[in-house]
């Protein structure tokens, strides 16, 4: 399943790249992209554990860039 999220206060391009890297490493995530320009995140992951994965995604983003909020 593929889902898109808006990101708020994503201020640093390098952080976006780090987030993307981190999210891709979460088990169950097939693909992820964080667009610094569009302030958007696309995640493709197993549907049955999507909610579980999203929790890890939020934690991962908070670790890299605490100011950035994911608008769920």
């Amino acid at each position: 399943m593929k889902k898109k999220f808006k990101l708020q206060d994503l201020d640093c391009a390098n952080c976006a790249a780090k987030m993307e890297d981190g999210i891709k490493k979460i088990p169950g995530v097939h693909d992820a992209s964080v667009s610094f320009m569009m302030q958007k995140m696309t995640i493709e992951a197993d549907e049955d554990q999507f909610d579980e994965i999203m929790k890890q995604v939020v934690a991962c983003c908070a670790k890299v860039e605490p100011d950035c909020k994911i608008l769920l």
Partner: protein
Amino acid sequence: MTEKHKKMLLRILVTFALFMGLLAGEKSGRIIWLEEFPAGFLAYFVPYCLIGYDIIWKAARNIRHGQVFDENFLMMIATFGAFGVGEYSEALAVMLFYQVGELFQSYAVSRSRQSITEMMNICPEYANIEEDGQLVQVDPDDVEPGMVIVIKAGERIPLDGRVIEGESMIDTAALTGESVPRRASAGDEIISGCVNGSGTLKVKVTKAFEDSTVAKILELVENAGSKKARVENFITRFARYYTPVVTIGAAFLAVIPPLLFGGGWGEWIQRACIFLVISCPCALVISVPLGFFGGIGAASRIGVLVKGSNFLEAVAEMTTIVFDKTGTLTKGEFKVTQVLSGNMGEEEVLRLAALGEGYSNHPISNSIRAAYGKPVDVSLVTDVEEIPGHGVCAQIEGSRILVGNGKLMESQGISYDEYQSGGTVVYVARDKSFAGTIVISDTVKEGAQEAIRRMKQVGVRKCVMLTGDRQEAAQAVASELGLDEVHAELLPADKVNRVEELLERQQKNQRLAFVGDGINDAPVLTRADIGIAMGSMGSDAAIEAADVVLMDDDVRKIASVVQISRKTLRIVKQNIVFALGVKALVLLLGAFGMANMWEAVFADVGVSVIAILNAMRALKVE
């Protein structure tokens, strides 16, 4: 400027005033204690906190999260280092300058974001529906196919549909880049995203919002960023190693030389701090994708959708372009120009052909039915068998009728009078004997010749045409347009093989594009390095399969996209060379003690700002 930017600007101005005051005091010698430890340190540390508190706060928080190679952390270490070796004014100045750069950078990014979103501002906000005689605005998402919407003058068309009432001129500029308005009246199909000009239209919706043209375009453009070009992937990988390597270099620089040669710890720590300031790869990480984004934006402005940075990169390396003839180089509007009779009247030849092709939607069949002019009673036709690349076989009024090309006649062992000059030819046979010939001509598209000429100008070496038509017809079109290679009389499956052959003949850094209108083309579009589809004539499947979509089917725009892509790549390469060059130079100078903190901060944020400004040039259309 946002609130955030204004607040930052205020902090910068206040700190700058304080800094100037302190500096004047120190340099004029009036306040002698400014270079001494607790007093001088405190005098500089207070404005330092004012300008840099957020950096220190973020740095502290990120260390807790294990993000050691974080920009904020590195800035903090670098400036603390300067404080530690007694360079109070420099520590403050570096932080101040860094924040100025960051503000510039953030402002430039938000400006470019703005201009990109403005450009893609084709998304309709509402649709008008009539309820109890009154117009109500609803979300386009809630409108279902079959409902009737009202579009007033000046409004954006929210959903694809067919006009049932009213007449107006429609401005398609947002989708095609063409500012010539198109007329729309009852019965015409209109597409979402365009602007309704002068009159009110009542439109019956044919597609739900998520399937409408505008939703598809937005999705394509938004997803374009996720298909990364090779240069982008290189930069991402590079960035991953760059920061740790430079930081470790800084650590060595601070410790090893003083241990080996003794003395001056302060001097070496200062040099190490210069390394830390330069260690963020932000200039590259922002400006490279921004450049591609701008290039894709510029292309969409002229009505060409590029589905990813990787395709933009490929277009720049395109050396061979393969056209499917019908619908791309020619209009695909066929007309019967001649009917030659064999053993029966011309009218009868046409009637049999029209019946035989009665079920087909192929443009050639349509033209035969149009030439026949009377309604076709398909109930007379049974056992229709379509033979791809040959024609049709059917049972009509008790006879076996064949309608197709020369190959069909040969395969059925029928002798026929071969028609020699140009055009598409359809032979008709009844019960194994030749009945007559229908000659159909297709007209070359306006601009096709110019398109080929411009393609050659921008450096495309080989223009090839593939067609299912006869050799003579194909040759006539090819020499009119100035094509280099023609492959005629191909079956749909042959097209894939021909493209594969051409792909094999290519060298490593060359790319092949295939342009098609989408009828039977999807496999070839996928196989080519770059699949280019016609947007308004093409099928949804072709648009899905293609990498580049020409919204208004104008082949001339391919050359423009090549130019845009080359410019984009040039800008991206300039940025990479410039950013890496400046960073490498300052690192080198810093290691030998010939660069100071100021230059280091310039190499970090200054370079970022310049690279962003340069990347924004990609968005401009000449």
